[in-house]
């Protein structure tokens, strides 16, 4: 996304850059923002409220020529070629882009903690403005820390624009516009896509030529036969035989070729879309999470299934006919013109009439069918809504109301549908009739010509046949541009993913290491969006075999830290060092094969329990699987399921509870015998008794392995060697349980809070096992 718009000469002049000052960010602010301020009776700039078209003090207007500019020294707002606001960045405490409702405002906080609103943007510009403001804030920080702006981090945005700069069209989730820049590019990609199938393509094209030739040739033979055999009266049975024979041979030949060509096209389409699908799938697996997380899962799924499907459809339905049809049509037109320009003109006239009718009704047709489609969409949404919310509907006893609502919608849809179909049933025959009229007129005039002897009978028949060739596919041809464009868009969306370079990949010098488990975070900062930091300046060291507990309120960055350790993301700044090697220099696969992970959301793949436990180590023996399941306290419930370890789980499979899923996930992590263990709320969905049992298993498991564990239930972390408390994006406290308790800081507050909660609810305590209560006491007493 573009963060430095170019200014005109007069705007640059107004900006009046001093020596050594340079423009770093410049983004449009598209809403008027001026509000009445303290001590002002009128809006700024002396504009009376009425004049500026506003009520109250806020001017409500789009702005076209307002820019928010940041240099290495100042923040400036330009309107046209006038500076309407500026401040020295060294006097600023903070610059923010605050999200409002449907818009954003840019505020500057000065050293006295006073906020000033300097610009306002609509949702169209808000992402860009957020990035630019983050850039300006980096300069503010650098000025504060280093006294100059040279060390400020340069903010860039990898997000795509929503509109094409050149043509103003919306971009379909691609980096380049498929209409402007993409075309040549896409043509090249299309060629490279077809590269492996050149032979087949050539063969198909050749068959298409032959088919067109046969189609074109038949009327010639017909004409010759009529003129030389039939109408002269000198024809013999032999002539008839030859003619029928030739026609028949042509027909059979053309049909056979056509069938072969269609089959070849379908095969080619499937092969192409399959190879694309495979490439896409592989690519999505390789791409870093940052790419995938920025897109909705449904969107990526669409690219894999629907867009590749479009390519297949194109080859099946369009490609095979496109060239031959075009060729046939052109040749037909030429031949028709040579036979009789007048008749050609007359029949074309009717075509024009039909097309005008089509155009006039096109909007209507499109509208009514689009509306039908939307109604059916609404209907199915409603069904889904009600079925998934069935329990709520039943508990509130509103079945009748919901049924009534649904039947009203269903009736509505049925009405629309029948109306549309009626319209179509009437409209389409009228069109066909009109097109036919052209033929009748042509026959009338042509017949007259034949009677007058100006034209032979054969010519007339030939003309009629060719006009059929010309008009038949016309309707289809009108859809051609749309179908080609759809294909291009799909291809563009596919290549957008295929061309994406994975951010996390092995470098040239990447090596495989056997992990011992020594970790060092060195000034690590990270944010999922570069304008929103989640972790800032994290420093700590972990010895091999240590268990580290990560503690803090929700949303402080605990899971993010784990994502960095697993190298699902790379830090924006600083480095993570594992056993004296920068994490970025360790082969990704090698790293991941030595990490065991149990995550907050336990995802099970569609398949059996056995498959799921074996996921990380497909070669594990059955004994190993059972051992792991026992360790995870999962063996007992698995035995109770009807199919045991062969029980099918996943989307349509056996229903497992949250705790059961979690235990399978733990078994999966244990089986791999990992050197590094990551437990992100690994036991949160379990009841106290199972947690205790698994805790025992985990305690055995973590011996000698570096372990990072996140838990809200602090008793889960009682085995941790050290605890790291994360607050406000950085490390607030670090130390052993006892050290932190003595410190009486955040951790102390957490522990006492949990203990009080337990005490304050005698019924809960009673419900717990006695062991658990004892543990808690132990825990606090430390």
């Amino acid at each position, binding site marked *: 996304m573009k963060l430095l718009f170019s200014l005109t000469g007069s705007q640059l002049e107004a900006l009046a850059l001093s020596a050594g000052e340079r423009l770093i960010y410049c983004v449009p602010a598209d809403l008027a923002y001026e509000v009445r*301020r303290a001590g002002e009776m009128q809006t700024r700039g002396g504009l009376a409220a009425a004049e500026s078209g506003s009520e109250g003090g806020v001017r409500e207007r789009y702005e076209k020529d307002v820019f928010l500019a940041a240099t290495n020294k100042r923040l400036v707002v330009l309107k046209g070629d006038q500076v309407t606001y500026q401040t020295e960045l060294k006097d600023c405490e903070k610059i923010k882009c605050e999200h409002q409702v449907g818009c954003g405002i840019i505020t500057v906080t000065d050293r006295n903690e006073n*906020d000033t609103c300097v610009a306002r943007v*609509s949702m*169209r510009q808000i992402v860009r403005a957020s990035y630019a403001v983050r850039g300006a804030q980096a300069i503010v920080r650098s000025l504060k820390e280093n006294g100059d702006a040279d060390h400020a981090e340069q903010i860039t945005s990898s997000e795509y624009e*929503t509109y094409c700069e050149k043509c103003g069209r919306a971009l379909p989730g691609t980096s380049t516009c498929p209409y402007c820049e993409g075309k040549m590019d896409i043509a090249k990609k299309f060629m490279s896509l077809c590269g492996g199938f050149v032979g087949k393509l050539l063969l198909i094209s050749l068959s298409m030529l032959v088919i067109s030739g046969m189609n074109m040739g038949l009327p010639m033979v017909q004409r010759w036969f009529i003129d030389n055999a039939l109408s002269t009266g000198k024809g013999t049975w032999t002539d008839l035989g030859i003619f029928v024979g030739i026609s028949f041979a042509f027909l059979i030949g053309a049909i056979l070729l056509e069938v072969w060509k269609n089959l070849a096209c379908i095969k080619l389409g499937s092969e192409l879309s399959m190879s694309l699908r495979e490439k896409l799938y592989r690519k999505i697996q390789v791409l870093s999470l940052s790419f995938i997380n920025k897109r909705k899962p449904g969107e990526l799924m669409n690219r894999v299934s629907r867009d590749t499907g479009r390519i297949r459809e194109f080859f099946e339905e369009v490609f095979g006919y496109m060239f031959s049809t075009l060729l046939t049509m052109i040749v037909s037109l030429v031949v028709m013109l040579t036979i009789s320009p007048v008749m050609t003109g007359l029949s074309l006239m009717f075509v024009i009439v039909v097309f005008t009718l089509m155009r006039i009704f096109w909007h209507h047709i499109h509208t009514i069918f689009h509306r039908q489609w*939307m109604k059916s969409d609404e209907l199915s949404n409603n069904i889904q809504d009600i079925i998934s919310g069935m329990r709520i509907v039943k508990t509130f006893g509103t079945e009748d109301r919901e049924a009534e609502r649904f039947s009203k919608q269903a009736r509505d849809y049925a009405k629309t549908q029948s109306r549309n179909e009626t319209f179509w049933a009437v409209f389409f025959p009228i069109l066909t009739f009109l097109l036919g009229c052209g033929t009748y007129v042509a026959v009338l005039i042509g017949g007259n010509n034949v009677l007058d002897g100006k034209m032979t009978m054969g010519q007339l028949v030939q003309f009629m046949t060719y006009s059929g060739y010309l008009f038949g596919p016309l309707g289809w041809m009108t859809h051609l541009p749309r179908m080609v464009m759809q294909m291009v868009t799909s291809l563009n969306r596919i290549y957008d993913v295929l061309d994406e370079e994975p951010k996390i990949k092995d470098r040239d010098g990447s090596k495989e290491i056997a992990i011992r488990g020594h970790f060092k975070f060195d000034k690590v900062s990270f944010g999922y969006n570069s304008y929103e930091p989640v972790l800032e300046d994290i420093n700590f060291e972990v010895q091999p075999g240590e268990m580290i507990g990560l503690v803090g309120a*929700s949303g402080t960055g605990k899971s993010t830290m784990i994502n960095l350790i697993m190298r699902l993301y790379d830090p924006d700044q600083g480095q993570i060092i594992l056993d004296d090697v920068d994490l970025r220099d360790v082969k990704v696969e090698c790293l991941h094969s030595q990490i065991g992970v149990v995550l907050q959301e336990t995802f099970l793949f569609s398949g059996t329990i056995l498959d799921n436990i074996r996921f990380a180590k497909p070669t594990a023996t059955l004994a190993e699987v059972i051992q792991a399941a026992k360790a995870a306290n999962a063996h007992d419930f698995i035995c109770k399921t009807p199919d045991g370890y062969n029980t099918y789980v996943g989307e349509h499979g056996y229903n497992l509870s949250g705790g059961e899923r979690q235990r399978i996930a733990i078994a999966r992590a244990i089986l791999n015998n990992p050197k590094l263990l990551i437990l992100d709320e690994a036991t949160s969905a379990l009841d106290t008794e199972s947690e205790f049992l698994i805790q025992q298993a985990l305690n055995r498991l973590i011996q000698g392995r570096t372990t990072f564990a996140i838990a809200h239930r602090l008793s889960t972390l009682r085995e941790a060697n050290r605890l790291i408390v994360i607050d406000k994006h950085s490390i607030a406290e670090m130390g052993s349980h006892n050290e932190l308790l003595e410190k009486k800081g955040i951790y102390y507050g*957490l522990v006492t809070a949990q203990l*009080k909660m337990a005490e304050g609810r005698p019924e809960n305590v009673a419900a717990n096992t006695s062991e658990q209560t004892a543990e808690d006491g132990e825990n606090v007493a430390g």
Partner: protein
Amino acid sequence: MMSEEMDLLDLDINEEFDEEALKKESEELLEMRFLTKENATFARTEGGFVSLKFGEKEYKRVGVYLTFPLTNPEEYISIREADEKAKEIGMVEDLKQLPKDQQEMIREQIRLRYFMPVIKKIMEIKEEYGYAYWYVETSFGVCRFTTHMSGDVVVSLSDSRLLVKDIDGNRYEIPDFYALGIQEKKKLDLFI
């Protein structure tokens, strides 16, 4: 121990745990506190926001949040602290109960915070390859925007009141569908 403790951790964890304080805080969360002209005074700030003096306390800048922005924009306005937590200070039950000048200030803040242009006239809606390109006149001036072609682009709030959402997430209001011209309604046909 039960899962409630997770919620507990979201509270202010800097303070030593004090059951009394926590109880008080939860009481405060439940309490309906109203700002009236007797107990609260709003004033404009130099920076274009409003400040609040509420009883003993003074706030340099407060946030103005509408609780029913679409149906009752001048009632139950929640006045909140300006930081990230945005803790509620109190509610203004009915804006008209405040002094005239302060009403104006709050309205200015509402206009600053909420951006939803009203479509006055639809000049053109052009469909091309799965997107609809709108050219309209709004309360903010003429504007071009783009929407997808799916069914959730235009949402009806009531029989006649519509909301249009564009690809960037801007929302546009059509206050009365029936007040539009025939041609304009026809252009909207695709979505309703």
